[in-house]
């Protein structure tokens, strides 16, 4: 009589036994057909090669795990399978976690606030790209070329503050969309942190002493580097992004960790 493996320890269990002779674990009756295969795996919901999302920091939902066993998994405030109804920073339909060629990707579903992924290596920022450092939502804007004085249609010149050339501006975006501060940098780098940097956010408990650095190269391309911060640096995605085990994703106020077994 063909036996079947114990789901707990893997020992061969005779077909008519209801408990494993090795570990004592309960063994389902050997039903005919495919269902038996499902019992082969630990963690009834975890499918091999599939991912789950664990809420690391959210609004009262910490530790909750979402299994991504289907193809599309929509997250949002009111739509989809992964719901955070109390997070006002999420759009009704915010993002989709989907498999493409057996690889997990995240797609921004046209949300207002976007999807942010923690960077693992220095990253080239596209113009207007938003990034998160601690609680700070920031943006880099390269300074436009100085066209010199230009008279208006009547031949009058505009009076402005004295010219002080700068490479780029670091813009702080406040909740609600207002600009808080703008730091104008004359150097090619801006260091950001809590203390001793070009720009310091003393009151932000989620920022490390030296947290991140912006570098502009000769072509005006801007790179964002995390300086080994505790909480990481997150960049808003502009196109669908592949996810790997251990990646962190911010949706609104929800910080999610990707786990792929």
């Amino acid at each position: 009589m063909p036996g079947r493996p114990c789901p707990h320890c893997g020992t061969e269990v005779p077909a008519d036994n209801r408990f494993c002779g090795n570990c004592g674990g309960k063994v389902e009756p050997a039903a005919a057909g495919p269902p038996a295969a499902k019992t082969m795996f630990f963690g009834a919901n975890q499918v091999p090669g599939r991912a789950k999302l664990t809420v690391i920091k959210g609004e009262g939902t910490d530790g909750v795990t979402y299994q991504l066993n289907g193809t599309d998994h929509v997250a949002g405030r009111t739509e989809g399978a992964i719901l955070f109804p109390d997070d006002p920073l999420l759009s009704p339909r915010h993002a989709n976690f989907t498999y493409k060629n057996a690889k997990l990707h995240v797609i921004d579903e046209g949300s207002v606030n976007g999807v942010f992924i923690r960077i693992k290596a220095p990253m080239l920022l596209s113009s207007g790209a938003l990034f998160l450092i601690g609680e700070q939502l920031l943006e880099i804007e390269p300074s436009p070329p100085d066209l010199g004085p230009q008279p208006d249609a009547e031949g009058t010149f505009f009076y402005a503050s004295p010219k002080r050339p700068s490479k780029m501006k670091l813009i702080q975006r406040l909740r609600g969309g207002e600009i808080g501060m703008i730091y104008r940098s004359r150097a090619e780098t801006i260091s950001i942190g809590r203390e001793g940097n070009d720009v310091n956010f003393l009151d932000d408990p989620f920022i490390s002493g030296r947290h991140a650095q912006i570098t502009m190269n000769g072509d005006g391309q801007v790179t964002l580097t995390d300086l080994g911060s505790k909480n990481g640096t997150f960049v808003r995605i502009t196109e669908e992004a592949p996810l790997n085990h251990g990646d962190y994703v911010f949706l609104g106020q929800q910080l999610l960790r990707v786990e792929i077994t």
Partner: protein
Amino acid sequence: MITCKSCGKENQDHYKFCLGCGGKLEAGSVPAAGAPGPAATGPSAMEGARTMLPPAPAATAAGELQAEANRLAPKPKGGIPWGDSPKMPPVMAPFQLPPNPLATGNRGPRVPTSPTGTPALEAVLAPSAPAPGPPVTTCPTCGKPVQVGFAFCGSCGTRIGKAPSGAAAALGVQKTMYGSGAAPTPAPAVAAPRGRLVLIRPDGTEGGTHPLHDGETLIGRGQGALFEADAYLSPRHAEFTATASGLTVRDLRSLNGVFLKISGDEALESGDIFRLGQELLRFEVISPPQPLEDGTEIMGTPNPGFWGRLSVIVGRDVDGSAFPLFGDAIVLGRERGDILFPEDGYVSGTHARISLLEGQVILSDLGSSNGTFLRLRHERTIPNGSFILMGQQLFRVEFR
């Protein structure tokens, strides 16, 4: 040596204002013991007054600026110290104006090479002695007299405990002073103009006048010898209206506006623009977040209490730095305060203050050398002796 009562800095005997804090020095201040002052080489009293003027651009060595920049270490109270140690290139040309774009033209407006439209005023601004009328109290910090009802000491900027009349009354007091300035006077001789604009040159001397007759006077580039050369003046820039009951000025939607040197507290509206030294600044209110139609709120840094923002205007529709405004008051200056302009020699050490009083945002000058100029939004009655900035030039308004 005179030791400043406000900050303790030692100043030369002939100084009228403290180099450290800008506070007025009293002649009878205790001389610093054993300080071998260079009295023998001291300039005359008049020159002494001039040494208090913002340094002339040419005289400001780049090294000095660097030193100033290095000392810059703003620690806004209870807030976020933006840019603790900004990096600056060792050599700068902070006072450069746009090069004269019309220099080679035969005719046409000349772009002035004068670095600023706010020349040194010390010589012409006999510190207008406040009317002896209002009751006075004493500032607990510097001991200077403070008019009852004022919320801040005019000398050192210290906040004064709430006077019984309240902050609103302070504004009222200021406003009535304007009213009295525009009091009707007996009609002058028939032919003589009712008033005039006196051009104040960058060195403080007078540089010609322009008459203000009864009725409207149009000011603009091409409207008189004084205005011919100013490429920052629109052809139709401003209109003055002189009547028996006073003088008003109106900006004719000019490119660069009409600025009035403020003489008391001024309420600021969102979008108001003012000048501090060479800096052109715009104030804006930061509104509380509003959810979108679908209930989503726009993500961002949680507002730590910012109620306003001050942007440096660096071009037409182009902003440079922007500073958040928070707390009760933010002080602007070259050396001391919450928002610093270390490279602008025309900004006083402590220059002006923006405060939030009972929901109203107030701009005040803190006894700066060159004054604080507010761009006029609406037609405004201006008192005799007012200073008006139009284009690149400064004028004193005189009328009977």
